């Protein structure tokens, strides 16, 4: 048997397996989030469908499928249809570069981190176009807020990661993970880690930064006019994004698959799960800031901090390189 065909088949198999695993975890995450919110609000959450309510996502999907697939008459139809596809697919494509464990992962790129930033940067199109094409005032306001918020926070999302790149000396995610064998980057790059988490939550437009959706002001923001599975795709995109941000933070700051005793993949999933639970905790605990506060925080506090972090890290790296040379 010839080599390329076998390796292509193996890659394809992994691709399908990862896709299925990600979508299943995103579905389960909708259940887990509601149970966790219930726990922290002294109630149960969905516990009726199946054992512990585990089949709740199945019931939700059936319900969404049965719903009327409504397209507003005034909507810009092709763009309206495209928006949820963009949101969901960008989230899934970005998973291609995540190094789950040695030998597990779809694509190993020398510029994996740049690919991640580029693809997640496209998510904003789904939100802006969805908000614009719906031809509704709430959608438009949500879309505008989404555009401003995501572009503002993307600036220092990238900058916060550059400290890691400087320390590891590579954009390759596997090299970055292996560079953390001695010490996880969360220790020297604690500022970068915190900034990345804040920017990640803002990019996901999840609470407390869910201003593009802001139920009590904008009905449902950019996806007000969406129903049925088109709404479902926005929803899946959000939860896939949560897992993606958790996985990326694990890769860049928490040493990826590195860890004693347990197999590498278990360590990776464990660390990602902890971060995802933390995102849910943020939702349970924190109120939504006002829009101008969000913008002021992003541009006046977090961006200078990210730049400072980059300069200091750069200084240390240069000093270290000068010392060894």
């Amino acid at each position, binding site marked *: 048997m010839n080599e390329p065909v076998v390796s292509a088949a193996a890659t394809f198999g992994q691709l399908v397996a990862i896709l299925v695993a990600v979508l299943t975890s995103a579905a389960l995450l909708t259940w887990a989030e509601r149970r966790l919110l219930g726990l922290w*609000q002294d109630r*149960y959450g969905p516990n009726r469908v199946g054992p512990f309510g585990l089949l709740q996502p199945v019931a939700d999907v059936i319900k969404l499928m049965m719903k009327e697939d409504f397209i507003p008459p005034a909507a810009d139809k092709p763009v309206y249809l495209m928006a949820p596809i963009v949101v969901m697919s960008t989230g899934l494509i970005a998973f291609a570069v995540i190094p789950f464990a040695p030998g597990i992962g779809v694509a190993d790129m020398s510029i994996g981190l740049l690919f991640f930033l580029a693809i997640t940067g496209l998510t904003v199109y789904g939100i802006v176009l969805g908000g614009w094409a719906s031809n509704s005032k709430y959608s438009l306001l949500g879309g505008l807020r989404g555009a401003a918020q995501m572009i503002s926070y993307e600036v220092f999302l990238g900058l916060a990661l550059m400290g890691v790149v400087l320390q590891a000396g590579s954009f390759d995610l596997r090299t970055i993970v292996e560079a953390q064998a001695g010490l996880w980057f969360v220790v020297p790059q604690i500022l970068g880690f915190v900034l990345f988490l804040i920017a990640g939550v803002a990019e996901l437009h999840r609470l407390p930064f869910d201003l593009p959706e802001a139920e009590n002001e904008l009905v449902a923001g950019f996806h007000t006019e969406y129903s049925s599975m088109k709404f479902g795709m926005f929803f899946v995109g959000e939860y896939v994004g949560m897992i993606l941000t958790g996985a990326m933070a694990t890769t860049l700051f928490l040493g990826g698959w590195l860890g004693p005793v347990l197999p590498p993949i278990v360590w990776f999933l464990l660390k990602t799960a902890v971060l995802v639970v933390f995102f849910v905790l*943020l939702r349970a605990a924190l109120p939504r800031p006002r829009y101008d506060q969000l913008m002021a925080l992003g541009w006046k506090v977090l961006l200078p901090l990210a730049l400072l972090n980059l300069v200091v890290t750069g200084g240390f790296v240069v000093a270290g390189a000068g010392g060894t040379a």
Partner: protein
Amino acid sequence: MTGMLKTGLLKTLGLVLLHSGHRRETVQYPEEKPYLPPRWRGRIVLSRDPDGEERCVACYLCAAACPVDCIALQKTEDETGRWYPEFFRINFSRCIFCGMCEEACPTYAIQLTPDFEMGEYDRRDLVYEKEDLLISGPGKYHDYSFWRVAGKAIGGKDKGEAVDEEPPVDTRRLMP
């Protein structure tokens, strides 16, 4: 300011996380029944006096008091002169469980009970007739019997024979 903001954030996160160990307030209803106090205003019943006879004397006060007109009845009399309802009908699809009928009732016949599980698939099944409403006991008032204290003569009890009742005065005599 930023420092205060940060400590406030960490504090609220910690406090919410502490709720993981709290008892859940939810009552898991079909398996676990909630406690209903005895004066809960639920399903309406017609009670009987300690002798096991119907308490209702068909005075129509409950029907008059009902703000949604869900009570219908017809008065009739037995051979001893005792009043009772020929039919007594409550339409529970209209009833708002306000308890006005219970307050209006002069004989403690109509009472509201701690029971709300009366869902039906057919709206017509929510119309309760007298045999659906009558219970076998005296409900919340164990010893009260209207006919024992009422001044009206019925079979087996003449004027002046009720509890605490003076003998009737002959109005044609002028002597005190």
